[in-house]
Every structure is written in C-alpha cells, then in structure tokens.
C-alpha cells in the first residue's frame, strides 16, 4: 500500500470502480449533512472505510463581508463582523474595534477594557460550550448537548441584559463601549461563575473517563505541532499539539497582561487532547472573569473619538485570540471615512486546512469526529 500522504491531490475524475474492488470510492458529504456544522461540503476518497484523502468545498455561505467593508464607514461596518463567527460575536467585535483603535491611535479607557475582557471571556465559554455539545453529538453522545445549551443560556442572558442582543451582540464600539454596565452586572457575572463551575465538572463526568469516548477520541485526528505551525493552525488545536501559543500571552492585547491565567497544552495532538484543552480553557476563562470582575475600575467608558472617523493613511494588522484561534484584521486606510481594504484572518478557515492531513488514514467515522474537534463555523470560513 502506498503511503496515502504521497498521493496526488484528490482526483475527482477517478472512475468509481466496483464497490468490491473498492480501491477508490468517492463519496460526497454535505453540504446538507448533519455532521458538517453548516454548509461544508467534503469530498472523500475512500478505500473501504479508510480515508485516502479529502477535499473541502466551501463558499456556500459567502456573503462578501470583506467587500462590503469597503463601502461602509468604520462605524457602520462594526455590526457586520458579528456575523462571521456568530457563536463568538463578541470576540469578532473586539478584534475589529481594537484594530481600528490602533489605526486611530486611541486606546479604550481602562473601565471599558475590563468590561470587554469579561464579555469576551464569557463568549469564549459560550463558544466552547456550543462546540462541546455539537462535538459530542457528532460522536453519538446526545445528552451533553442539552447540558451545555442550558448553561450557555445563562451567558446569553447576561449579554441580553447588557446590550439587548443575544447572539450577534455588537457589544463594543470603536474607542470603548456604548453602554455602561447595567446595575447588578458584577453580581450576575459572579453568580454565573459560581453557577457554571460545577457544571463543567458535570460535562467532564459524562465524557472524560467514558470508555467509548476515549476510544473514539484518543489517537484520532492526530496532528503534530510542526504540521500545525506549517499550516498556520492556531487556537486550541495548536495548543493541544503541544505548542504553547496564545495571543493573550504572546502579544497581550486589551489588558490581558494584568490577569493571571495559564495556557493549557496537550501532548499528543489528538481529539482527546483538544477536548481536554478546551475544558481547561473554560476554567481558565472563569479565572480571568473572576479577577476582572473584582477589579473593574471606575471611569469613562469611551475614549475621545471623532464623530467622523478619518484614520490617517496607513495599514494595521491586529489579531486577538478568539475561541477558535487567532482572529486577525488587516485594515488599510486611505484617509477617507471608509476603509480601503479589510482583510480578515479567520481561525476557522485556516484550521480547516488541516482537515485533510488529520483525516488521512483514518476511518469515515473519524472524519466526523475531526470536523467536530476542529470547531469550525462556516460563517467565518466563507465570510
């Protein structure tokens, strides 16, 4: 048997030989498929149940967000970014706002920074909870989905109370915040922290030592740190492969350098390690939230920003650690009120490149597990 990694890229013209001879069977998964998390289409080339290679076909959800940006003012474009990774809308907004702030050379006041951190970390927990539920569902455990959605609801309630929206929040403004934290915001956040801590143990009880879960995830979709770096994979996937890279630590933004937290890493880079890493990340996020909510300073929530934003001519690349990995914004300003070009570096899109490598030589059922463990959001992949 030749090493499947040495095979040429998927050749879709390969004739579908007889099922028996089954050297190569080409199967189309998606775009309408329960396990592809949206409208991802995967063309699999199989030898029996073994994956020889696969190709992702994307673009079914393309809305031209980057192009739209060129015809909107900086302020007007802000809500659009929420629609990319819609399960982590707050993170998207944070990245965009900070990028434009850098372009304008302003900095949000400390109080705004703290509230931003709290909301972003809450959103990270929400994103991971959603990931856990759907991932477990893909592998066949249906119950965790309901547990996680129940607890995610509490986060969405806080969002709703804060800004009125639950999913596409548009929580931040360039230069700070639009809304002051409502009365009892701190109390709500503290309550949530104490509420969700035992719940995370509950998820782990269901899965972490479950024999079938271990068999389905250990050694599945292994990717080495080197390959991760070569492919540009970031986020929990990279960390599970043993690379300690988190932008919150590596290039601190907002005021993450004021908080004490750890970056979990895995060893084997398999699906199980990614699961563990995300579970620990949720706990670490709670740690950050606890510290942040204790230390919210008083003061203004909005920096001095001109009504009509005309950033100086120039360009800026700013990236943050979104729940799925490095989310970067590259904005070119030509001095007018509208950006000349906005380019988004979405973590899901980049991480999806690793799918082929991770699925080679695995079984079809593992493809499902691997898609789940990559934690992609098609809105962000296609933009």
């Amino acid at each position, binding site marked *: 048997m030749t090493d499947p990694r040495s095979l040429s890229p998927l050749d879709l013209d390969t004739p579908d030989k007889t099922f028996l001879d089954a050297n190569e069977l080409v199967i189309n998964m998606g775009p309408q498929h*329960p396990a592809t998390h949206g409208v991802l289409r995967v063309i699999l080339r199989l030898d029996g149940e073994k994956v020889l290679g696969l190709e992702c076909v994307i673009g079914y959800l393309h809305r031209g967000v980057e192009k739209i940006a060129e015809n909107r003012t900086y302020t007007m474009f802000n809500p659009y970014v929420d629609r990319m990774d819609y399960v982590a809308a707050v993170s998207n907004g944070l990245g965009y706002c900070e990028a434009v702030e850098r372009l304008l050379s302003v900095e949000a006041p400390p109080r705004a920074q703290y509230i931003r951190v709290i909301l972003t970390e809450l959103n990270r927990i929400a994103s991971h909870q959603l990931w856990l539920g759907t991932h477990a569902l893909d592998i*066949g455990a249906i*119950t965790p989905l*309901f547990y996680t959605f129940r607890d995610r609801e509490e986060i969405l309630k806080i969002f709703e109370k804060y800004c009125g929206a639950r999913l596409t929040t548009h929580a931040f403004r360039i230069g700070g915040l639009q809304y002051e934290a409502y009365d009892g915001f701190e109390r709500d956040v503290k309550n949530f922290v104490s509420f969700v801590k035992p719940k995370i143990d509950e998820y782990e009880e269901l*899965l972490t030592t479950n024999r*079938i879960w271990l*068999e*389905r995830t250990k050694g599945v979709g292994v990717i080495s740190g080197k390959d991760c770096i070569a492919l540009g994979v970031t986020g929990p996937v990279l960390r599970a492969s043993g690379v300690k890279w988190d932008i919150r630590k590596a290039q601190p933004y907002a005021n993450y350098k004021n908080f004490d937290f750890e970056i979990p890493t895995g060893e084997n880079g398999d699906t199980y390690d990614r699961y563990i890493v995300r579970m620990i990340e949720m706990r670490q996020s709670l740690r950050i939230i606890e510290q942040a909510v204790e230390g919210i300073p008083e003061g203004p929530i909005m920096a001095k920003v001109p009504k009509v934003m005309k950033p100086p001519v120039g360009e800026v690349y700013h990236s943050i650690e979104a729940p799925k990995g490095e989310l970067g914004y590259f904005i070119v300003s030509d001095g007018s009120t509208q950006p000349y070009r906005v380019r988004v570096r979405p973590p899901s899109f980049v991480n999806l490149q690793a799918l082929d490598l991770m699925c080679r030589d695995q079984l079809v*059922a593992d493809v499902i597990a691997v898609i789940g463990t990559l934690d992609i959001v098609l809105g962000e992949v296609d933009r």
Partner: protein
Amino acid sequence: MHALVQYIESYLSSDKTPGTAGNWFWATVYVLLVFVGLSIAVIAMNWLERKILAHMQVRLGPMRVGPHGLLQPIADALKLLLKEDIIPDGADKVVFWIAPFIVVLAAFTVFVVVPFGPTHAITDMNIGILFMLGVSSLSVLGIVTAGWASNSHYPLIGALRSSAQMVSYEVAMGLAVVSAILMTSLNESSTGTLSMIGIVEAQKAQGEWFLFKFFPLGIIAFAIFAIAMVAETNRAPFDLPEAESELTAGFHTEYSGFRWSLFFLAEYSAMIAVSSIAVTLWLGGWLRPFPNLLHGTTWDLAFSFIPGIAFLLLGAMCFYNTARMPKHPLFKIQTIGLAGFGAVLALIGLVMFLPPVRERVGDIFWFSAKVAGFMYLYIWYRGTFPRYRFDQLMKVGWKVLLPTGLALLICTALWAMRSEVWTQVVVPVGMGFADFVRRLL
C-alpha cells in the same frame, strides 16, 4: 351464553398453550392479543423513550399533544400514515416494497413462542429458542434488501454495516444462549430442552434463576447476551447503521411515511423480543421473585396484589400531576384528560385485585415488568453513551465477546459435568500419576 362462558372457563383452566393444544380459535385470539399488546407496547415505549430521555437531558419532551404528550405517539402514527409515500427514482420498486415487511414479519413472528406465562404463549415449540434466534436473524434480510433497493450510497453502507454487525453479534449471542440451555439439562428428571416454557420450568425446578447459576458463569453469559442484544437491535451505543452524523439514517434513509414506521415498529418489537429471550433464559421468565423461598398461599396472595398496586400507583401519579396542572382555562381539557387517564389506570388496578383476574395476570405482569426493565436500560444507554466506531464495534464482537463466550461455554460444560470430570478424568489421572510416582520411588 352459558356455554360460551363455560368454554372460556374451561380454556382458562387448561394447562396447555393453544398451539400445543392445537386449538385454532384460541391460537388466533392469542395472536391478535399479542399483536395488539405489542403495538400498544411499542407506542408506549415510544412515548416513554422520549419522556425519559428528555428528563435525562434536562428538558420536558413532548408536552403539547394530550396531557404530558400522552397522545403524541398517536399523532405521530397518524402523521406517518398520512404522509406521502416516496419511492426514489432508480430504486428497485418490488424489493423496496417488500423489505420493510420482511423486517416487521420477522420481528413479530418471534412472539409466537414468547412465554408470558406457563400457558400464556401462542404455542410451545420443541425448538422454541432456536426458532426465536432463527426468525429474528431473518430481519437482516429485510435490512440488507432495504439498503440495496434504495439505490443510494448511505443506505447501502448502512445496510452492509448493519448486517455485518448483526451477523457478528449473533455468534456471541448464540454461544451465551447455548450455555444457558446447557443449564436446563441439569434437572434431575429432564434431559434439557430448547422450549421456552421448558427453560423457565427448569429454572423453577432447579430453584434459581440461571443468572445466578454456577456463579459467576451465569452472570457472564447474561452480560454477553445483554451486550450482544443491544448490538443486535442496532441501538445506542451500537447504532452505527443509523448513525445520523455519519450515514444520515442508515438503511432507511430513503424510506418515509408508512414504510418508515414499519421499520420503527420492527425495531422496537425486536428490542422487546430479545429482552424477552434474556428474561426467559436468565431472569426466570414469568416467575415472581423468590417463588421457592417465599412460597405458600400467604406469600402467593401477597405477591398477587403487587400488579394491582402498581397500577394504582401509576393512577395516583396521574392524579398528582393533574393537581399540578396549570389552572389556566386553556389547560382544562388536558387536565381532564390526565385525570381520566389516571382513572382508567386506577380502574385497571382495581380490576386486578379481583381474585380470578389477579390469579392469572401475575405471570404476565412479572414478565412484562422484567422486560420493561430492559427497555429502560436501552433508553439509559442511549442517554449516556457516545457511539462506537465500526472497527471498534467489530473488535468488541469478535475479539472480546466471542472468545469469552467460547471459554464460558467450555467452563459451563466442565462445571456441569464436574462429578464425571472428577471421577473419570481427574481421579484416574491422579491415580496414574501417583502410581507413576510410587514406581519411580
């Protein structure tokens, strides 16, 4: 009129099943009863699975159709019957038609020999357990043809998986069953039997459930069977053939409406059927708990009240929930419905206290209760476990269960023959060895 009553009474006091007795009329009545009972059981199972699973998953489950969604299965059934029946283009129409019927037929036919009581079976066959295994294995044919006839990749893979899985686990299942059958021959008078009723009678005669016989051999056999039967019915965590995240819906992806509901019916009937086998072989079938230890008329009387009490408790639960219903006018009908349902249950409970009834429904109640326990297990598995991968499933079947089953069979046989083994093997060999040692010295 009197003659009719007398006829019925004479039948009820018979000690034979209608099939054994060759009574066509009663056999037909029994077939109808079993069919109707089974359908009700499947409907109830449908509702219960949804409710129990929902409560495991911190949600309510069906609540709208009828009080606490009690009428939901009926609504579903109506919907399925009224749905358009789609046959995909390019499908093999004849086979596509026949396949669900094969599955349903196989699932229902096995109930011909299921003993709900010493006389409460349609017939008692000489080869009862063999018949059950054989006919239930016929459902593989239906699944394979269904998958093939759909002319689509996912059903075909699902069907192949399903049949490979069922064929594989049948082997382990068969070995576990054989070791139980071996135990029936240890009766002083009997020479062993394949008859379902005979197996239960053997347990009664030997004074213990086969589950506890030759501890721990009986329990191991039961465990093998309990695992294999989950795989055999394609239920979680062995539900690969219909793993929706991989194969959409497995072999019945292309089926809809009435024909789909047949598959549904067959799946649940098969679950009940294999649970019945387990109950019959290891859990003493219709026997009430401790029939030998707590015997005597007083204990009989005490135990015969339990079915009625159980129904009364169910009725009481309904009434309690009725009281908890919202007092809004919109809920009026539901409240009344729930109360009515409770009343019916309570009435049934009361009827079960009547001496002629309570003396005869005890067997059926205990059998059904044990089967219901298995049904709950099925639901519990589904709420807890992720799904196995196919190679892991095959590994469990062939590398774990099959060798264990073989070893178990040999151990059971040796244990059963231990006196012969002792007198004819161990003692002569030991004597010979002693002789050898003596000569050596």
